[in-house]
């Protein structure tokens, strides 16, 4: 079953084209690894799907309905971890999480109970009543993770969700994703950390220059490009070969007086 369908999506900012015709279909239960160089348009795609921005051409359908015509109701079934960890950080974790849950239409008491229990899983039970501004990077990220799962969404947009997490929490989180995918939740995972993407995604979508240059499982991509790791495939497909030269140049500039 198709959860997400993008047809010929184009978007430009003040004459500069960012997306130049993206076509993508995502089925229920898939984990999509959404990768691409900086400035390729990954965040823009996600922002358009969430209705944070308008002014695009083409069609975005989520849960089978065109988001341009169906209002904001579809967001009820979406969870989102933004790349910039923006939160109301003068609130406590409890206040923030219950607030967000209520925006999703949850009952306060349910949200309160669930949020506390979920933070406890991440070892943050004690911080439930502390202000987010006092949290470390990893704790903030855990709070964001909880806020995006709290309302039991069917489709998740995760933008660098592992930022700042310690190795143990990373393992827990990866396992969480695998279990949810098995249960039929769809996960849209964008990241620059290639080995994680390689391991957790069933399908990898590579965006470059405003359109999709590769779309398939890791095995498929590997057979196409005869490269060993996703990192190498990435370099090859984005036409980047001079990493050694660039590094040498950087070092020599640093050494200059």
């Amino acid at each position, binding site marked *: 079953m198709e959860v997400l369908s993008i047809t010929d999506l184009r978007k430009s900012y003040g004459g500069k084209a960012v997306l130049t015709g993206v076509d993508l279909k995502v089925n229920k239960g898939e984990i999509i690894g959404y990768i691409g160089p900086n400035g390729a348009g990954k965040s823009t795609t996600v922002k358009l799907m969430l209705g*944070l921005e308008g002014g695009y051409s083409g069609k975005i359908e989520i849960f089978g309905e065109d988001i341009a015509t169906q209002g904001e*109701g579809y967001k009820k079934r979406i969870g989102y971890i933004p790349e910039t960890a923006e*939160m109301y950080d*003068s609130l406590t974790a409890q206040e923030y999480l219950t*607030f*967000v849950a209520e925006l*999703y239409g949850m009952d306060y008491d349910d949200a309160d109970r669930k949020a506390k229990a979920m933070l406890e899983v991440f070892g943050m039970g004690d911080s439930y009543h502390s202000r987010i501004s006092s949290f470390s990077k990893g704790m903030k990220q855990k709070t964001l993770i909880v806020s995006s799962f709290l309302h039991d969404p069917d489709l998740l947009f995760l933008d660098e969700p592992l930022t700042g997490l310690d190795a143990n929490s990373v393992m827990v989180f990866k396992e969480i994703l695998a279990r949810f995918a098995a249960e039929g939740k769809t996960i849209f995972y964008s990241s620059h950390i290639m080995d994680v993407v390689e391991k957790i995604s069933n399908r990898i979508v590579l965006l470059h220059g405003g359109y999709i240059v590769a779309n398939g499982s890791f095995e498929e991509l590997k057979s196409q490009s005869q490269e060993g790791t996703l990192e190498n495939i990435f370099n090859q497909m984005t036409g980047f070969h001079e990493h050694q030269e660039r590094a040498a140049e950087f070092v020599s500039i640093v050494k200059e007086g």
Partner: protein
Amino acid sequence: MDQFFILRLLDLFQPLFEKLGIEYKTMRRILQVKLTMDQRRKPTVFQQSGNKKDKPEKNEFFKSLWIYALFGLMLIPFLFFKDTYLFQVSILFSIFMFIVMTTLISDFSSVLLDLRDKSVLSTKPVNSKTVSMAKLLHVTIYMLYITLAITLIPLIVSLFVKGFLFFLLLLGTFVLADIFIIAFTALLYLFILRFFDGEKLKDIINYVQIALSIAMMVGYQVVIRSFEFVDLTYQFDFSWWQLLLPPLWFGGLFDLLLGGRTATGIILLAAFAVIGPVVSIVVYLKMIPDFERNLQKLSSQSGKKKSSSRWKLLRSVPFFVSKAELQFFRFASRMMKNERDFKLKVYPSLGFAIVIPFVFMFNSYSWMTFEEFTASRNYMTIYSVLLVIPASVMMLAHSGSYKGSWVFQVAPVASLGIINKAALKAFLFQLFLPLYLLVSIVFSILFGVRIIDDLFAALIAALVYTVLCFLLGKKELAFSQPFDAVQKSGDISVFLLFLIIPILVGLHFLALTLPYGVIGYAIALFIINLVLWRKL
């Protein structure tokens, strides 16, 4: 989270909001969260400047309200006028609307034009109408508190002087005026957002703020001039353009209802008093989705910025900025230029600084001949340009990206004082000096070159005043503090700093009576200036 009284008050209007297609429960929750956050001081990167750690939750805002109460006292004399209602009420509303509108455009524009919420709120299933309404109410709540502070004492006085009916009508019209001001300002922003794009939009908003400040100053003069002083009473002749002056609407309403005057002009004005606010709020509500959509434009980065060649000019004045300061000076200038909130809060006062000297001047000009006028000392009103300094200096400590200030602590900067010094100089050079020169040129044309020494002395006084404002303030590191949603430019410290200006003017006048006095005054100030800048 506290229960807010104001929210319970709002609950009474729940059906109304729901009729407008707003999810009341959600909106209330957003407001509750916003009000809670306003009460909390945001932590700063620099802990040493944060010695006021987590005081009991009390909105700083409420502490600044008494200043407004003080402003409100200005309204009281007009309640004792024996003239027509039209005159006294119009003047009363001119002052009232002036205070409210200036507060709104300088302190709350940033809330209306806030984008920070976007990623938190818009990704949730909340309709934009609800978010917008929450935003508008957030501002309205603070405006109502301010209104209450301004009008409480005058209202009580009016109850005793003018009776219950007058009191009641005054209360109602104050609220109407508030609604009109907020809706009008929001509509104005909407209009700009709609027709401009990208970088230009950001600039235009600041120009509009300046223009609004000027328009209000001038508008106030026009209201007064609508009345002619004949035989010890004010005469009023109606003409169509007076319909453009909102304070007169309310004067007309009082004249009609309490004074019983039924001239066509009066009826028209009275009708506008009711129609104006209602129409403006209805139109705004209709346009809300448009507002939210266009607001996004503010965040878009479009076009490359041209690099300024002004730096070359600067290198030629090394006595002004030392080599060590230059980098921070450059940094501070760019921050000031790019910091949207800074501009939103400071630019309106730039508008005032341009107009106030002339307003003061023309008030006295009206009873002088031109020859008398040019020979007079009215040019001393140049000191009113200094009014822009305290709030600007205070704002220099703030930044939207305040967290970035960790770099100063990490980098081997010998003294953080140099950063503040450079920031103050950047402010003087980039904002104050152009303004001052502009007014100075006009003054030199009006009063002749004889006043050049005075203008020069006043400029040095401005330098002294700038550094005084900093030293007497909180002395926080430039750009290291977050902007609060409710900034208190009516802060007591700013108010007290204003009081230094008349002292400077007094000294200058004293110097004028002595031979070579002005030169002596300038030299003395210059020495003080050198000493004080070293203290940074």
